[in-house]
């Protein structure tokens, strides 16, 4: 049945956690997609969405830790999580390599997220059968 054929998704998250609902909606969607047998090729963080890959979030203990939840989901399902390098550098999200390059006092990228260029996203628009965006709402 063509209507329910299996898809491979790229999810693009542009809204930040604790500011927008975007990372939450995206995670619940991603879990449901995997459960239905679809593939999630990769998750791409863009704009304010890169804050989801911060290793330094410490929300109150009675609130969901969205960065940890996302990191766990990506690890368990071996899905690459990529933060756009241009968005990340402007917003203060760096890995060890960028820390050295820009002589910054620390790095704060949460595993298993990696930092890469928009080329990853371009590849996704070509390779994945569905590219879904999760923007900040209001």
């Amino acid at each position, binding site marked *: 049945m063509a209507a329910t054929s299996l898809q491979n998704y790229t999810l693009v998250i542009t809204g930040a956690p604790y500011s*927008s609902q975007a990372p*939450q909606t995206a995670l*619940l969607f991603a879990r449901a997609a995997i459960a239905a047998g679809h593939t999630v090729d990769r998750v791409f963080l863009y704009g304010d969405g890169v804050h989801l890959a911060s290793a330094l979030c410490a929300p109150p203990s009675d609130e969901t830790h969205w960065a940890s939840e996302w990191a766990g989901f990506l690890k368990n399902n071996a899905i690459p999580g990529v933060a756009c390098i241009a968005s990340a550098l402007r917003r203060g999200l760096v890995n060890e390599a960028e820390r050295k390059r820009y002589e910054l006092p620390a790095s704060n990228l949460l595993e298993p997220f990696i930092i890469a260029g928009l080329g990853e996203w371009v590849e996704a628009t070509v390779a994945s059968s569905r590219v879904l965006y999760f923007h*900040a*709402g*209001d």
Partner: protein
Amino acid sequence: MIDQSPYGTWVGREALDMAFSLAAFDQAVSILFTDTGVNWLRAFQQPNDIAQKSVAKNLSAAPIFGVEALYADAAACRRYGLTLDNMIEGVVMCESSSELLHQFAHAAFAG
């Protein structure tokens, strides 16, 4: 002043924190809900399935903290089908929120 709808953003929650802090430090404070912000006041919110805490439950602590009043813009309530019957308790309807605004020395949004 809270003019943003619940759950979609954190601005309203952070406005609530501001109001509670003012009250905790014995400053006179009221909260005015306008525009889509009135949807904070709808009864029977069940955010469990989106893994958030109920903002209505947070709001119910307002009198305990010493927040003087919860005002709701009447026109916005009409727009979103809200009446005193389907809203949480303790809300005061306000026909002209701009008039109310002029009675306060300070008015602020959280974002």
